[in-house]
């Protein structure tokens, strides 16, 4: 068995936390895990991604091109940026919430989230696209968009472990102060997606 997940987003969106939660759950389910995370300079509002490799064998932590089973995109442009990692027929879940780059260095193309979302829809059959930031905001804080997306993943049933195991890890890892709001975001997203799938 192998299951490769790539999480993409903007520094500050909680990509590392989402990655750690999935990795811990996979370990709990008895798999080997290796992850690669962006920590350091790029965390400051730059493009960030986490690679999570789950399986029976230990591999290098970077997913080769065309091998990710699941691409979780916390922002449209960052999702597209990592699309070449997705395998044919892989699942994409994207947060439609826009985060425009803070500056436009000379020569940088325009930010066109609508165009990028249409591109994703056209090139990824079965794409799940929702405003998870809004959903999390309604659940209590827009900062829980990362956990809401994990709820959506759990709702699709594509993960090689149960949603209960994932929820148990969430309970254990998220500090008590933020637990309730994160649980609500997780569950709402899971319900929302279960309706679609």
């Amino acid at each position, binding site marked *: 068995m192998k299951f490769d997940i790539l999480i993409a987003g*903007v*520094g*500050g969106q909680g990509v590392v936390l989402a*990655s*750690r939660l999935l*990795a811990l759950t996979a370990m709990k389910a008895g*798999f080997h*895990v*290796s*992850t*690669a*995370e*962006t*920590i*350091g*300079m*790029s965390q*400051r*509002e*730059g*493009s960030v991604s986490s690679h999570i490799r789950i399986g029976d064998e*230990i*591999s*290098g*932590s*970077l997913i*080769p*091109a*065309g*091998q990710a089973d699941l691409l979780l995109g916390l922002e449209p*442009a*960052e999702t*597209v*940026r990592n*699309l*070449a*990692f*997705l*395998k*044919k*027929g*892989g699942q994409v879940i994207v947060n439609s919430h826009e985060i*425009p*780059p*803070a*500056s*436009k*260095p*000379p*020569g*940088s*193309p*325009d*930010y*066109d989230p609508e*165009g*990028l979302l249409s*591109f994703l829809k056209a*090139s*990824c059959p079965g794409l799940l696209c929702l405003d998870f930031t809004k959903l999390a905001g309604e659940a209590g804080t827009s900062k829980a968009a990362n956990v809401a997306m994990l709820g959506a993943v759990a709702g699709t049933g594509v993960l090689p472990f149960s949603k209960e195991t994932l929820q148990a890890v969430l309970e254990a890892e998220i500090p008590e102060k933020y637990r309730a709001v994160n649980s609500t975001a997780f569950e709402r997203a899971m319900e929302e997606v279960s309706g679609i799938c």
Partner: protein
Amino acid sequence: MGNEAIALGAIEAGVQVATGYPGTPSTEALETIIRYAKSGGIYTEWSSNEKVALETAVGAAYSGAKALVTMKQVGLNVASDPLMSLSYIGVKGALVLLVADDPGPHSSQTEQDTRAFGHFANLPVLDPATPQEAYELTKLAFELSHEYEIPVILRTTTRVSHGSGDVELGTSDGMEAGMEAGQIKPVAWDFEGFTRDRRWTIFPRLTAERHPWLEGLQVQLSERFSALPYNTVSGQGKIGIMASGVSALYAKEAIRGFEDIFTLFRIGTVHPFPEKAALDFLKGVENLIVIEELDPYLEEEALKLIGKEHLQVDIYGKKDSFFPVSGEYSVDLVIDGIDKVLEAVGIASRLSHASPAVLREELPPLPIRAPTLCAGCMHRTVFYAFKQAAKQLRKEAKAVQAPETAHAEQTSEASQKVQAVQTDTIFSGDIGCYTLGNAHPLNMVDTCLCMGAGVSIAGGLSRTNPEAKHVAFIGDSTFFHSGIPAVVNAVYNEADITLAVLDNRTTAMTGHQPHPGIGVTALGSSSKAIDIANVVRSCGFEFVKTVEVESLAECVEAARVAMDFRGPSAVVFKGKCVGITKSDKRCVIDPELCTGCGFCAKQLGCPALALPGGVGEGGADNAENSENADNEENAKREKPQILDNCSGCGLCAEICPSGAIKTEEVLR
């Protein structure tokens, strides 16, 4: 995380003293030990720099204690002075250096290879590929250091230090109490203590005596390493692959399905090179592919061995461009390299890539999303203030020069060029979050070299560009790390520079470690806070001002006065790091007053300011369109928005030409 695994390995090995200076990707190793320090009875400190950290650990190891010191690869450069001498002297207890390399690089100024440094310094280097191996090799490093009385380098790369994975912990005494509960059995403080001995005092005669011992040790260790289980051979194919670190895992994955063609030799103990094990492996192959990030270290060792033993083996690595000489490797890159070799040696098989859902070439154009200063970061205010101050000074200088230059009509092109340079202000930067001040649209970092270099480079520039103003930005932690000698030099040699200390009271970039200026130690207990302004003053700066970063106008004024001062001047800008403080303010735009000019977003590059029409070039185009009165829709679209990440610093409010932005109190 690999760094956590290293910390646990050190704890299991009985580490008693652990020191370090933060540096990506090494930081979490010491942070993890700090978490267990109280319950584990381990002395830990964030030292003021890597040299100090190493020397502190050396003192402990001279006393028979087991010591660990952590740093990133460029930190080893700072610590290299004591380390080079220490290799002759050796240690008594144990001394392990964690040095994290950064192929890519992701967060570093160099792509140097610590394996090569080990070779240079005659010190053993271990090179793990996974967090599990990092944990095990840490324990081995302590054993070797104790047994051979030599410092041992545990070298990781970003993918090992910052990769996470499942690690099976040992069952030694220290670990039994249950690491998961956050508790460990306290380490016995059972070392002998310092005993006076001439071996601790380096002297030319001692060095001469010890050098043969050090060289002999290389041979002994090479033999020992050849017998260790961390160097493994798998497969029986005629094409050999030699790899270390994470590249070995990429190789293993790349050749999946073609294992019968290859024999893979993985090396975990890279220096001294395990010659015997390598020779056994080489005798069974006809061709050798060497796969390694950064320097061709293994490739050169293999070349030497093949030459020495007159083996008929062709080598394919970096030297003939089969693999890249720089950057980070991946499975795909390794597949490409191996395929080139297969073609060169006339083997028909080809390793293949997976086919992605969408090819990289088919992706639509994507905006560059470079890392940037946080919304509300005090550094943005200070950078913008100096930009304004420099602009004002330039205007004044031009006004003074204008009558003179009117007469000098026939100036040559060359002297015009010099003139253009001389009337400018040169901004020297340094290492930290504030290096991001180089980014568009601030563009406020003209030089950046290494920790603490900004102040001395400004001094050098002031000698060769005497008509220009010279400003050196330095962060608080960097100031204590290596800024002080440059401050002393500026006074001693009368450099006409302005020192701008960006004091946000934390080591922000590496994850908010304390430093000597804030009065808190690594363990969180209070210590004497060293005041930067007092340090600068006591070094002899005659102009020293401290400014709380609250209003832009005050910062501009302080910058101007300091830049006008002849001789070394300093302004210590004190503020908060928004990464660790909560704000109860945010900015709001009055849509009635906002004209949609977008000046705020375009000038500041603040991630909390969004222009729906895009900032920069795109924004400027739209701004022209919006002057067209009947295109109301466009004008409406163009208005900036303030996003949720605003912390209400008020900088945009101060520069808004229409006074349309206000700061409000909010409940968070």
